[in-house]
């Protein structure tokens, strides 16, 4: 992977994938260290990118209803991909299976590709030419679409897209996505105000 080229040892690169296991944070850390950044500043940036996982945990906690003793182990797998798969399942059983399978598969593959990439296996070539970089957003879109059931969800998603893209050039990495999360309380608040007004104004 890129990080071996930017001054980290193979061991450090693999430790990063095993222990951090949040792609965006790893890339941010490696990028900041490669640019000669202070280790703590670099870690702070990476940390910001990881904060959204706390919000995923909040929802997954309700959805999976895991026993307390299992939670510290499940926590490492609380990431974008496992959340989106778990949320797409209609039942708790399905959500648990989805979470576990996605978590395990990604954890193994992610660490394996880190090791192979670090060892210098660059035989895959340019995956962009095959359009494979579009698969990521398409998977997210396909899993997100069923969640956009009502106007509220659509409004949240729309506002989040505008915030996420609009703030990208002006705020440091990871922060725009966190600001985009504000779309949820903002839309809920607006909806609450409207409901209160409807309640007072008429008998609908």
């Amino acid at each position, binding site marked *: 992977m890129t990080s071996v080229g930017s*001054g980290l040892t193979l061991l450090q690169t693999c430790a990063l994938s095993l222990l951090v296991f949040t792609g965006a944070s790893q890339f941010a850390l490696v990028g900041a260290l490669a640019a000669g950044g202070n280790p703590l500043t670099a870690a702070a940036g990476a940390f910001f990118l*990881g904060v959204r*996982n706390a919000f995923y945990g909040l929802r997954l906690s309700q959805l999976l209803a895991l026993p307390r003793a299992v939670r510290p182990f499940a926590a490492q797998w609380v990431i974008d991909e496992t959340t989106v798969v778990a949320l797409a399942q209609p039942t708790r059983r399905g959500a648990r299976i989805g979470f576990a399978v996605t978590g395990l598969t990604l954890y193994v593959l992610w660490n394996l590709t880190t090791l192979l990439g670090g060892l210098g296996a660059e035989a895959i070539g340019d995956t962009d030419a095959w*359009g494979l970089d579009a698969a990521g957003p398409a998977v997210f*879109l396909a899993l*997100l679409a069923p969640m956009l059931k009502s106007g509220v969800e659509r409004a949240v998603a729309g506002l989040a897209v505008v915030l*996420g893209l609009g703030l*990208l*050039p002006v705020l440091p990495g990871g922060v725009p996505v966190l600001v*985009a999360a504000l779309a949820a309380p903002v839309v809920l608040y607006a909806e609450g105000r409207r409901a209160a007004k409807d309640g007072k104004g008429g008998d609908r």
Partner: protein
Amino acid sequence: MNVWIAIGVTALGCYVVKLVGLLVPAGVLERPLVRRLAALLPVALLAALTAQQAFADGRVLVLDAKAAGLAAAAVALVLRAPFLVVVAAAVVVTAGVRAMTG
């Protein structure tokens, strides 16, 4: 050594953040407002991430073949195509547009 410190701090921070969400007491999550918010937060985060993956390169906004791919995926979704077809549509259209333009 410094690199190891950075790795350690990041690993610990990112793990704690992941755990915090899971450990919020069930009682708090029962409240209707918290329930609604917890359900909507992933929608906001994932929508923003999807958009950034599709329309940004680092911190620069770009409109390239990926946008066409995502549009194809959206059309496939509206037509209620199966999951793999949706993803395949995005990949094929992106590759096609790149082949034609690049």
